[in-house]
C-alpha cells in the first residue's frame, strides 16, 4: 500500500510552509531517517525525515512551492513490489482524518484568514503607500530603524543573534548591526534582565527579548523593582529607558506553563508603560515609540499574530503614540473593547453581528498603561453598552478595570452591565478540545453582545 508523505507541522503555530528543496528524486530508495526535503517555515528551515522505508514513487509538490498547507500530500512512497502507476493515491489527506494539527487547534486564531481592512488612520497622511507586512517583519523593521537612529539601542536575549530569533523576529539584525549590538545570552533571564536594566540606568537603551513572557517570570523582580521604580526612588535622577518585549498569551498546544497572557499583570505597575499591539502597523509604530520612550516599556506580542499580514504605511519614520486607542470600526449599538489577539475575536464578532443588524464599535486599546479611557468612555456614552475581550484570566483582568472605570465615570449612560469576555479561569490544558474551550472565542463575544443588547 503506497504511503503518502504529508507536509508536516514543524512548530506549534505552523499552518503552511515552503517546500524549499527535495533531496530525493522519484525512483530513489529511502530508509527511515533519510532526509527527504527541506521545509521552510516562518520560523526556520527544517529537514523532513523519512519515517518509513520504500521507493519514492511520485513527487506531488515541486520544490520551491510556497504556501503548502500542513497535511497536504507532497510525495508518495511505494512499498516493495508497488509501482507508481497503479499505486492508489487518494486526494490530499482530508484534514478530518489527520491528527489535530497546530493549525486547527489554534482555531480561534487560524480559522478563517480574516481579510481585515485597517481603518483609515488620521496619523497617516492621505495617499501614503501601504505595504502588506507581517507583524514579525514589522517588529524587525522597527528595531532596525531605531538601531540605525540611535547607537545606544541594542538587542539582547536568547537566540536573537546567530539563530536569527527563536520566532525569527530579529532576522537579519546580527548581519546589519554585529555582535556588539545583537547579543545572544545564556538561558538566564533573571541575570540578563538585571544586566540590561543596569546598562539602561547607565545610559544605554536596551531591548530585552524574552523568547516568551512566560520566561520573564524569572526576571519579573528586575522589571518591576529595578526598572519600573528607579525613577521614583531616585527622585527623578535616573531611570531605566528600555523595552522588554516578546510573545505573551497562548500559542497552540504548548500547555499550561507556556500559555499565559501577562497584560493585566504588568498593566498594574506604576512606572511601567505597557503596550500590546494587534496589527503590524501598530506593532511597528508602537515599538519605535517604545524604544524612544525614556521609561521602561513592556511590549507584549503574540506568537499567533507574528505571521499575520497587515498594511503598514511606507513612511520614513512611522510611529504610533503610546496611550492612544484606535477605533477599528465605528458602530452605534455596542462598544467592544479589546487589544492584542483579542481584537481578532472582536472584529470577527462585529462582522457577524452586522449580519444580524447589530452595529458594534470596536476599539483596540493598543496601550494598557496608560489606558486611553476617553476613547472608551466616549464610545460607551454613545452606544450605552460595552463588552470587553481579552485572552487573560478573568480575575482582576483589564476588562474588570474597564468595567469599574465605566461604572464610575459613565454609570448613567449604561443600559446594561458590562460583560468581560476572558480566558477561562483554569491553567491552559494541552488536549486540543480543552484548549479550545479554555480560550475566549468569537461566539462568546457574540453571545455577550446579544446579552447586553437584549437580543
Amino acid at each position, binding site marked *: 500500500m503506497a504511503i503518502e508523505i504529508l507536509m508536516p507541522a514543524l512548530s506549534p503555530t505552523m499552518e503552511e510552509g515552503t517546500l524549499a528543496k527535495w533531496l530525493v528524486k522519484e525512483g530513489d530508495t529511502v530508509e527511515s531517517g533519510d532526509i527527504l526535503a527541506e521545509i521552510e517555515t516562518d520560523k526556520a528551515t527544517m529537514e523532513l525525515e523519512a519515517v518509513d522505508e520504500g521507493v519514492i514513487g511520485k513527487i506531488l509538490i515541486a520544490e520551491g512551492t510556497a504556501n503548502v498547507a500542513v497535511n497536504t500530500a507532497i510525495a508518495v512512497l511505494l512499498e516493495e513490489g508497488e509501482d507508481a502507476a497503479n499505486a492508489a493515491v487518494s486526494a490530499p489527506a482530508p484534514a478530518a482524518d489527520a491528527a489535530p494539527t497546530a493549525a486547527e487547534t489554534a482555531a480561534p486564531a487560524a480559522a478563517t484568514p480574516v481579510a481585515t481592512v485597517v481603518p483609515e488612520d488620521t496619523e497617516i497622511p492621505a495617499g501614503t503607500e501601504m505595504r502588506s507586512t507581517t507583524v514579525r517583519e514589522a517588529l524587525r523593521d522597527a528595531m532596525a530603524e531605531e538601531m540605525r537612529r540611535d547607537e545606544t539601542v541594542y538587542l539582547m536575549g536568547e537566540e536573537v543573534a546567530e539563530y536569527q530569533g527563536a520566532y525569527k523576529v530579529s532576522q537579519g539584525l546580527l548581519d546589519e548591526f554585529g555582535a556588539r549590538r545583537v547579543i545572544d545570552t545564556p538561558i538566564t533571564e533573571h541575570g540578563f534582565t538585571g544586566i540590561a536594566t*543596569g*546598562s539602561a540606568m*547607565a545610559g544605554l537603551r536596551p531591548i530585552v527579548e524574552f523568547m516568551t513572557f512566560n520566561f520573564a517570570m524569572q526576571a519579573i*523582580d528586575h522589571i518591576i523593582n*529595578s526598572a519600573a521604580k528607579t525613577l521614583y*526612588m*531616585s527622585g527623578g*535622577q535616573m531611570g531605566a529607558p528600555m523595552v522588554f518585549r516578546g510573545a505573551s498569551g497562548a500559542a497552540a498546544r504548548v500547555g499550561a506553563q507556556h500559555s499565559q497572557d501577562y497584560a493585566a499583570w504588568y498593566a498594574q505597575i506604576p512606572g511601567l508603560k505597557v503596550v500590546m499591539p494587534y496589527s503590524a502597523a501598530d506593532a511597528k509604530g508602537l515599538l519605535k515609540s517604545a524604544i524612544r520612550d525614556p521609561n521602561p516599556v513592556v511590549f507584549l506580542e503574540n506568537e499567533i499574530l507574528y505571521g499575520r499580514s497587515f498594511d503598514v504605511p511606507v513612511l520614513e519614520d512611522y510611529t504610533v503614540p503610546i496611550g492612544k486607542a484606535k477605533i477599528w470600526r465605528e458602530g452605534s449599538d455596542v462598544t467592544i473593547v479589546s487589544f492584542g489577539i483579542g481584537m481578532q475575536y472582536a472584529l470577527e464578532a462585529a462582522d457577524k453581528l452586522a449580519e444580524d443588524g447589530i452595529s458594534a464599535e470596536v476599539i483596540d486599546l493598543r496601550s494598557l498603561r496608560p489606558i486611553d479611557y476617553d476613547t472608551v468612555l466616549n464610545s460607551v456614552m454613545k452606544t450605552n453598552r460595552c463588552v470587553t475581550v481579552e485572552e487573560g484570566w478573568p480575575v482582576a483582568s483589564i476588562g474588570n478595570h474597564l468595567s469599574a472605570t465605566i461604572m464610575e465615570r459613565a454609570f448613567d449612560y449604561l443600559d446594561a452591565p458590562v460583560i468581560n469576555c476572558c480566558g477561562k479561569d483554569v491553567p491552559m490544558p494541552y488536549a486540543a478540545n480543552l484548549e479550545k474551550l479554555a480560550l475566549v472565542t468569537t461566539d462568546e463575544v457574540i453571545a455577550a453582545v446579544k446579552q447586553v443588547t437584549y437580543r
Partner: protein
Amino acid sequence: MAAKKKTGKSNTSAEELLGYYRDMLLIRRFEEKAGQLYGMGLIGGFCHLYIGQEAVITGIEAVTEEDDKRITSYRDHGHMLACGMDPKGVMAELTGREGGYSKGKGGSMHMFSKEKHFYGGHGIVGAQVPLGAGLAFADKYMGNDRVSFAYFGDGAANQGQVYETFNMASLWKLPVIFVIENNQYAMGTSQQRASSTPDLYTRGAAFGIPGEEVDGMDVLAVKAATEKAVAHCRAGEGPYILEMTTYRYRGHSMSDPAKYRTREEVQKVREERDAIEHVRELILAGNHASEDDLKAIDKEIKAVVNEAADFSRESPEPALEELWTDIYAEA
C-alpha cells in the same frame, strides 16, 4: 572569624592615613547619629547601619577614578559618604525630607546620585549584582575603560542571580569588581549556617573569575587588593571578586534583637580589629599626627555630622504634589 594580623607598619603617607581616618570616622559618626535619630522617631522603617565595616568602602574608594561606578544593597550610607555624596542630603533622605537625595521618596535603602555615579541603594538581596554588571556592560559597550563596583553581602552571595551574573560577566569580560562584604551574618543567620562552602572568594572559580580574600578591617589591605583588581578590570581582563572579611557591630537593622551572637563576640572584634582604631595607631606610631590633631579631626567630623542632622530635621517634608512626580520621565 579568625583574628588576622594587621599591617603593622606602613609606608603610607601622613596625608593618606589621615584621609582614611577622617573618611572612616565620618561614616561611623554619621551612622551613630542616624541610630540616634531613629531612636527619636525621626527616621522610620528600615535603617541598616554600616558601623564596623568602614574600612571596606574607604579602602576601595581610595582607588576609584572619575566616572567609575558603584552600586550596593540597602546597607548603603557608608558607600554614599565615601563616594563623596553630601552627608546633609543623605541624612535628609533618611528623615524623608525634601532635601534628601531622592526628595524623601527613596529612604534609607533607595538613594542615588547621578553626579557621583552611585546607582543605589537596592532593597532586594542580590538584585544589585546583575545591575552592577550592567553598569560595566554599558562602559564596555561605549568603549570606556571605567570600572564598576557591585557590593553585596555574604547572604546575597548565595543568590542564584549572582551566579547567572558571574557567568555572563566572565563570558563577556565585563569590567566589574564583585565586592563581597562578608560581615559574617545574613541578617541573623551566620555564614556557616547558610553557606555550604566557607570561602566566598572562590565562588567565581567555576566561571573563571579570579578571587581574593582580603582583611576588610584593614583599610590598607583593602586598598592594595583593590588596586590589583582594578588593574585587572581596566586591562580588559574581565571581572574580579574581592571577599572582604569584615564585621558589623550593630544589628542587621534597627529592630534586630541580636540573639544570634554574643555580646562578647562583638566586643572582641571591636577591641582587637577595629578599623578606625587600627589607622589611629598607625598614625600615632608613625608620628604622623598628635593625639590633639586627631581630636581636632574628631571635632571637625562631629560638626559635619551635626550639621547634617540639623539639616535633616529642618528640611521640610516633600510637597504633597511630589506623590505624583517622577513616575514617568517626559519623552
